[in-house]
């Protein structure tokens, strides 16, 4: 598709197409060629490229931090240990500032989110054509290297966080406490009848608020990175002599965005889980 001098829209579409593997109703099991075929595969298809890069970067994170944790010393730390300690302390500090309760999960969760999301966002700074060209030469037709520009990836993480919100809300407040929080707020009254009348309104408001948490969490990260990636692709369409004039400032600006988005995802996760632990 990219070969034989693609048009500009073909080039952009090609760059925004994941490597989808699934079962096509007509062509059978295999790689989807183009968006239409990918859509035809339905829900039970996988974005192999997103998953590959996400798992690779997640493994890199685990390997690097495990290596530092294994060789950790309470004396003078080495360079890697220093780096790891700095990030762990940062995550721990963010958790302690916001989260009042005690949980063994939330610290590691925040650390994993921050580092993993950061690494996935960092792939955005790899020149847009570099890895796709290499994989194309190897015979792989599509390759999106930034997992966070795939809404499945960000939604996968935010839904996991959402599951934790529900889990902790029920664990801390009980089913009735959680239900009461959804049904009896924000409008309340001392009169029983008015209170009952308020329940549908409250449920609607609180329900929307609850659902908005994972959706906004996922779409914020996805939107920022997708937009950034798209601009890189558009810059790549310019004549090669002037690309640097736009891609360099945008990349420098993007360094801020990728760290910020990783931080926001981590911070909001902590805040949501902290809210789930609180009694109203």
């Amino acid at each position, binding site marked *: 598709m990219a070969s034989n001098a693609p048009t500009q829209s073909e080039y952009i579409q090609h760059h925004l197409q994941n490597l989808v593997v*699934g079962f096509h109703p007509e062509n059978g099991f295999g790689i989807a060629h183009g968006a239409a075929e990918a859509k035809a595969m339905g*829900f039970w298809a996988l974005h192999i490229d997103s998953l590959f890069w996400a798992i690779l970067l997640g493994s890199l994170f685990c390997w690097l931090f495990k290596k530092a944790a294994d060789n950790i010393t309470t004396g003078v730390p080495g360079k890697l240990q220093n780096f790891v300690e700095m990030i762990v302390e940062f995550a721990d500090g963010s958790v302690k500032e916001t989260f009042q309760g005690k949980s063994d999960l939330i610290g590691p969760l925040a650390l994993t989110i921050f580092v993993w999301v950061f690494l996935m966002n960092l792939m955005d700074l790899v020149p847009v054509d570099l890895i796709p060209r290499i994989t194309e030469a190897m015979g792989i037709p599509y390759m999106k290297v930034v997992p966070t520009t795939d809404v499945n990836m960000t939604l996968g993480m935010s839904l996991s966080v959402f599951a934790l919100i529900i889990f902790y809300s029920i664990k801390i407040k009980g089913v009735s406490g959680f239900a009461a929080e959804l049904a009896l707020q924000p409008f309340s009254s001392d009169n029983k009848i008015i209170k009952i009348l308020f329940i549908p309104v409250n449920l609607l408001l609180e329900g929307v608020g609850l659902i908005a948490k994972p959706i906004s969490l996922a779409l914020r990260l996805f939107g920022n990175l997708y937009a950034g990636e798209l601009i890189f692709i558009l810059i790549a369409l310019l004549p090669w002599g002037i690309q640097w004039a736009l891609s360099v400032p945008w990349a420098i600006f993007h360094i801020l965005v990728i760290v910020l988005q990783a931080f926001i995802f981590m911070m909001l996760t902590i805040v949501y889980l902290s809210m789930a632990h609180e009694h109203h």
Partner: protein
Amino acid sequence: MNLNATLLGQMISFAIFTWFCMKYVWPPVMAALNERQAKIAQGLADAEQGAQRRAEAEDEINQMLTDAKAQAAEIVAAAQKRGNEIIEESKDGARSEGERLKASAQAEIDQEVVSARESLRQQVSSIAVDGASKILGTEIDASSHAKVLDDLVSQI
């Protein structure tokens, strides 16, 4: 950007990575951080204690130094006093010795004078008799003029 099973794959990998981090990364790093914090706190406390102990030692040293100086001054003063005493003593000794020597010399001289006078006394009468006889041309009986001679002798 259609939703598909990638979502589930991501949720599974997210769970696995978080579990891995919770199990193998977070506890050792946090343990090390807390331990180092405790170590640093201990080190600071030790340093403070050390400084306090040093200040105390310094006070003690100053006290000892003052005492030693006072003692040294005392010793020097005593030595000076003793030196003066010795000088005075030797002065007195020398003076009395000198006086004694002078006295003995005086006594000797007096004795010499007495003995010289005695011998003169013995010789004077004979000289006088000799002289007179030579002047008179006659022999003079010493015994007859004994009284005159005795007067002469006593004048010496």
